[in-house]
């Protein structure tokens, strides 16, 4: 029963994928989209079912399908694990997935490759489910790479544009760098524990099996590299903003809500290992904090609506990593969930805007849209409040908990995180003001076409806005349902910080900080009616920020160009030299042959001369030399 349910859960999106690949073109557009949506909805239903089951039984479900690979002295099964963590993830992956599918039916309606879009989305959901439910690192890796593949396919969905293809390729390759780390991590764990199975490793750790902590540290560090690739942390984050080349639903689903959280999922999965290696945790925390700050800085001056959201995603992911690094896995998970709600809502909202603007993404050409798009505006406002950390809204609770933990563990990190939060509030409201307030700055033609999006688009927005509002209550300070729910995942119980004055003080500080950010944005963009200038007018530090600290350029100069240079050098010189050397051997022999022909000069006298000399030398050697 469980097995077949799991198979349904897994294969429903895959069936949707197959249907859309093979028949998508033949059926009408709506059918194609509907089938894709239903496939995901089925999964969502099953996930819900599992959720209720596990809520009552509290027992993880392990399903082994077949024996897959054999490594050294252990086997790797094709098996799946449904426990609290994976079901939680399943829920919001398939849930948000369903909403975004619905949204896409309308959003992508005019695209000639609609059926492919749904096929890829379904495939993505399939791989995401694999990633989340895999019972060992290898199955997880299948999903891990699979979602990477789908991300590649969807970023490059409009494949006629080679720039989009470049972005897709970049995303895939950057992910692959992380994946190598992941692989090495798997190797290390396999070597240390003779298993890559989560349950087995967990049991081993729980039973106090002695492991070489040095190697374990190496392994967890490698895993973290893997996570940072997928979850866009420094130094592997640059692909995420570029990934905005894909259709907006993709950005919402993959690059905000689900795939990018895979790294957090993985680290949470292996929390018991990371707990053993505090050094690595420290690194994770620091990287997370810095990432959140750097991304927030960059987001301050971006003008592309999706780019701002992308950097905001990076920044929020950084916060999650900060939490992970501080050992507060459940808080990270909490933030993942709330972030999934409001960020999906934001992206979909921006998609709605872009839809209305006919593909225009530059905020400088927007403005005053709230008059034209009421629903979009309201939902967007709610999500923005959520992300800025205004109380009641979901983001407030999760972000606040992160800041709190940081405050307790490391003040410096707390400062950084708080700074990032303030900036978040600023740039999100900057985005909001520039887009929805003041007068419309686009062309008349665009103004003429401005309209509220159809209900298929607004419905998901509304649902997500609601979730962004109430989502925070799953982990209300002091009475956290989530923490209780996730307990079985961890080995070490984290000491709970009781709700005390410090807590309230910190909450107050956070809220004040957010309000300060909003206030600055208000004064700049409402009071002073500023509009960011054209690209060439930007100077000073803003220019550095606007150009994203030139990180892409630096990578290009430090890594990509040298590789190309080495490649050219190898191709033009080493290859030629090697080939020339081998060829040269032949050539030299040939040359000797040519020269040797001179000796064969046809003169009997010379021939006999050599004959005699030869004779004389032989006799001399044999009889006189000794």
């Amino acid at each position, binding site marked *: 029963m469980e097995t077949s349910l799991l198979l349904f859960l897994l294969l429903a999106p895959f069936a949707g994928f197959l249907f859309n690949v093979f028949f998508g073109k033949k059926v009408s557009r709506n059918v194609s989209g509907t089938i894709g949506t239903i496939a995901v909805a089925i999964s969502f239903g099953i996930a819900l079912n599992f959720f209720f089951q596990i809520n009552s039984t509290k027992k993880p479900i392990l399903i082994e399908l077949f024996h897959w690979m054999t490594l050294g002295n252990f086997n790797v099964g094709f098996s799946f694990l449904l426990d609290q963590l994976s079901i939680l993830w399943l829920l919001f992956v398939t849930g948000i997935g369903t909403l975004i599918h619905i949204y896409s039916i309308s959003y992508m309606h005019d695209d000639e490759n609609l059926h492919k879009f749904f096929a890829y989305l379904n495939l993505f959901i399939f791989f995401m489910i694999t990633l989340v439910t895999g019972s060992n690192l290898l199955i997880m890796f299948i999903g891990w790479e699979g979602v990477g593949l789908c991300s590649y396919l969807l970023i490059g969905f409009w494949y006629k544009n080679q720039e989009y293809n470049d972005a897709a390729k970049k995303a895939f390759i950057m992910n692959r760098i992380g994946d190598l780390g992941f692989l090495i991590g798997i190797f290390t764990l396999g070597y240390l524990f003779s298993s890559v199975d989560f349950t087995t490793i967990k049991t081993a750790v729980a039973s106090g099996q002695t492991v070489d902590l040095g190697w374990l540290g190496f392994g967890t560090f490698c895993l973290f590299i893997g996570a940072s690739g997928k979850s866009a942390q420094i130094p592997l984050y640059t692909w995420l903003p570029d990934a905005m080349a894909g259709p907006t639903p993709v950005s919402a689903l993959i690059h905000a809500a689900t795939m990018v959280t895979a790294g957090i999922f993985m680290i949470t999965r292996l929390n018991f290992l990371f707990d053993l290696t505090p050094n690595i945790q420290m690194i994770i925390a620091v990287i997370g904090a810095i990432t959140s700050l750097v991304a927030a800085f960059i987001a301050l001056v971006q003008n592309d609506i999706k780019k701002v959201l992308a950097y905001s995603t990076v920044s929020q992911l950084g916060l999650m990593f900060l939490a992970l690094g501080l050992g507060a896995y459940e808080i990270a998970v909490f933030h993942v969930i709330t972030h999934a709600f409001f960020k999906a809502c934001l992206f979909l909202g921006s998609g709605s805007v872009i839809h209305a603007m006919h593909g225009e993404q530059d905020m400088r050409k927007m403005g005053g849209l709230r008059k034209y798009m009421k629903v979009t505006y309201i939902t967007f406002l709610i999500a923005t409040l959520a992300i800025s950390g205004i109380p009641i809204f979901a983001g407030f609770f999760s972000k606040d908990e992160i800041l709190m933990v940081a405050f307790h563990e490391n003040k410096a990190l707390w400062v950084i995180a708080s700074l990032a939060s303030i900036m978040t509030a600023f740039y999100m409201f900057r985005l909001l003001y520039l887009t929805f307030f003041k007068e419309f700055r686009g062309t008349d033609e665009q103004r003429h076409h401005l309209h509220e999006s159809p209900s298929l688009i607004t419905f998901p927005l509304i649902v997500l806005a609601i979730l962004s509002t109430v989502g925070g209550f799953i982990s209300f300070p002091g009475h956290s349902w989530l923490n209780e729910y996730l307990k079985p995942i961890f080995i070490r119980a984290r000491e709970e910080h009781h709700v005390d004055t410090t807590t309230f003080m910190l909450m107050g500080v956070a809220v004040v900080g957010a309000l300060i950010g909003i206030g600055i944005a208000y004064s700049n963009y409402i009071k002073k009616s500023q509009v960011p200038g054209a690209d060439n007018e930007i100077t000073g530090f803003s220019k550095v920020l606007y150009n994203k600290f030139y990180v892409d350029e630096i990578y290009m100069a430090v890594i990509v160009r040298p590789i190309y240079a080495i490649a050219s050098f190898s191709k033009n010189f080493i290859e030629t030299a090697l080939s020339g050397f081998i060829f040269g051997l032949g050539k030299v022999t040939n040359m000797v042959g040519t020269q040797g022909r001179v000796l064969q000069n046809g003169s009997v006298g010379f021939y006999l001369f050599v004959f005699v*000399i030869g004779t004389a030398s032989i006799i001399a050697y044999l*009889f006189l030399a000794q």
Partner: protein
Amino acid sequence: MLTTVFYILSAITLASAFLTIFTKNPIHSAIYLVICFFSIAGHYLLFNAQFLAVVHIIVYSGAIMILLLFTIMLMNLNKEDEKHKSGLTILAAVASFCLVAYVLLAAFIKSMPILEKGDYYVSGEDYQSIKVLGQVLLDEKNGFMIPFEFASVLLLVSMIGAVLLSKKEEKISL
């Protein structure tokens, strides 16, 4: 006495051999060569190998040299028409002559046992009269009968060869 004769004969042999080579005119060369052959026959006589000496003179001086002379005459080669040889050729020839002579002689001197007069083996039997030679040459069981007959094949081949090489082409050729 014998020694003197030996040295005189040897001197004639070597001198005439050299002259054969150095004389420009082929006819003169041939004549020097005949002298050389005669002196070698003299050596044979010294060894009391009269039959061999006679055969030698008949074959070499009589047959081979006549053949050579005949050819020279036939081709009207009795001019000194050989081109001036290059210095390199001369040098090479001289060098190789010296080298090979030195090497061979040195090898012989090095390896040669010093034989006193008494060291020579003397059987006292007759071993080189016509009678004995005939027996050795033509005896089937203990002699060189087979090679003797085989030599006939050799001569036959050279005969056919000579004929083949000078046979007129029939009309159909070319």
